[in-house]
């Protein structure tokens, strides 16, 4: 699939394990630049680990990862993490207000977040301006996930990694976030890699899909592959998820 697209992220025989436990096994392939790729598969398939490798929170045991054609080892960790943004699944917050959290990426560079920018970030993710001063302890799970996405966008990453960011959203919020992500992708040509358990979402939003199982990539292609997968394991998985 990646032959005709320039890769934003390319994996070359990547392995990763914790002690004797293999998490990722011989991952090779690309996430195309300017496209939305969804990662689907059962829990424990290694999807989150794969994203953390791309953001530099983890390093592969062997093999290499290329970001926009440059080996990940050539990047300074701070530069890499600002180029490849990640919204973590648990949407962790620092203590303080919504503003404190939105301002965090800039505060780490000793810069300040304008209030007008903060308001527009809230608007982008479908949150009201009145939330800006609210303590994050008083946010719902869905609101936290939205703040987490907005915060990741502050660094204006070239590549955006999303780890199950809509898992605790209601249907309306889910649609708002899907529209936002598509808008970001289309407006800034940001490459997006999105882990989701929602196969319908993967079909509708993703240009491409990777199906991962037990640390391996078992099938890749345009997202329509989910409608008629070739791999038997994927067929069983898709039936189970849909059923």
């Amino acid at each position, binding site marked *: 699939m990646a032959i005709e697209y320039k890769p934003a992220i390319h994996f070359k025989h990547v392995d990763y394990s914790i002690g004797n436990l293999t998490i990722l096994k011989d991952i090779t392939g690309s996430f195309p630049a300017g496209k939305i790729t969804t990662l689907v598969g059962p829990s424990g398939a290694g999807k989150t680990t794969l994203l953390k490798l791309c953001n530099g*929170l983890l*390093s592969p045991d062997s093999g290499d990862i290329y970001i926009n054609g440059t080996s990940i080892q050539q990047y300074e960790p*701070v530069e890499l993490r600002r180029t490849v943004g990640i919204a*973590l699944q648990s949407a962790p917050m620092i*203590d303080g207000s919504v503003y404190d959290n939105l301002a965090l990426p800039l505060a780490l560079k000793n810069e300040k977040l304008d209030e007008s920018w903060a308001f527009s970030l809230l608007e982008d993710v479908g949150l009201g301006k009145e939330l800006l001063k609210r303590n994050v302890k008083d946010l719902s799970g869905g609101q936290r996930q939205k703040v987490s996405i907005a915060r990741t966008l502050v660094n204006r990453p070239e590549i955006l990694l999303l780890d199950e960011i809509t898992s605790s959203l209601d249907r309306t919020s889910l649609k708002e976030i899907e529209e936002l992500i598509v808008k970001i992708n289309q407006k800034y040509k940001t490459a997006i890699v999105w882990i989701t358990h929602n196969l319908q979402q993967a079909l509708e939003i993703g240009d491409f899909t990777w199906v991962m199982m037990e640390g391996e990539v078992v099938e890749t292609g345009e997202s329509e592959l989910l409608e008629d997968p070739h791999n038997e394991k994927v067929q069983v998985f898709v039936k189970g998820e849909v059923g």
Partner: protein
Amino acid sequence: MTYLTLSITLIFVVIPLILSKTLNLGLEKDTIIATLRSIVQLLAVGFILKFVFDSESLLYIFLMVTLMIAAATHNAQKKGAAIKGITWKIAVTLVFVEVLTQSILLGFKITPPTAQYIISISGMVIGNSMVLSILFLNRFTSEVEAHQDQTELILSLGGTPKQAIHKQLIQSIKASMIPTIESQKTVGLVQLPGMMSGQIIAGADPIQAVQFQLLIMFLLLTTAAVTSVLLGFLSYPTLFNQRMQFLKN
């Protein structure tokens, strides 16, 4: 005090033994071991100190202080087993605190350069520094554990390890210093410090005893601050690797 009088003080050991036996607390064996150990250890130290004080040898003073630092390091390092290289980090901290405090005391001629002063004050400084190290390591380990998500978040947004661990570090430094500061607020009101009481019982002028106690208390403030800050800044980098990745567990 004669040895006969001292032996009568064992009444204070018999009382808890009777209580333990009567109430089935099961502490008789520990109480007896603790009593025997305190007698043997303190008498041994007493004889060693008498020998060192009489000799006035710098070598013996150095050996005595080194022994104190080694024992304190051994005791404190158990609490920081999760931190790589914690033994030498504690040793460096204790040595630094000892050198700093003695340099000020001797440099400004606050205390005379005799074994009597150097060893006694070193014992208080090193002992306090050891307790502070244990308090700091206990708190720091639990703060790091409890805020793993926030540490990873800050790293993921392009923060440095120092930025990622800053809050946990500051909280731990503050928490370990608070007992020293709080105990100084109530000193003289709630309790008379052991050293001052000892001097007064031994017949010293109470005002002079207070002056020495003040010196020790101010000294312990510096000890508390320097120990926790230095140990903190030596410890946190080992939680990360060169790629600025958080090394969980």
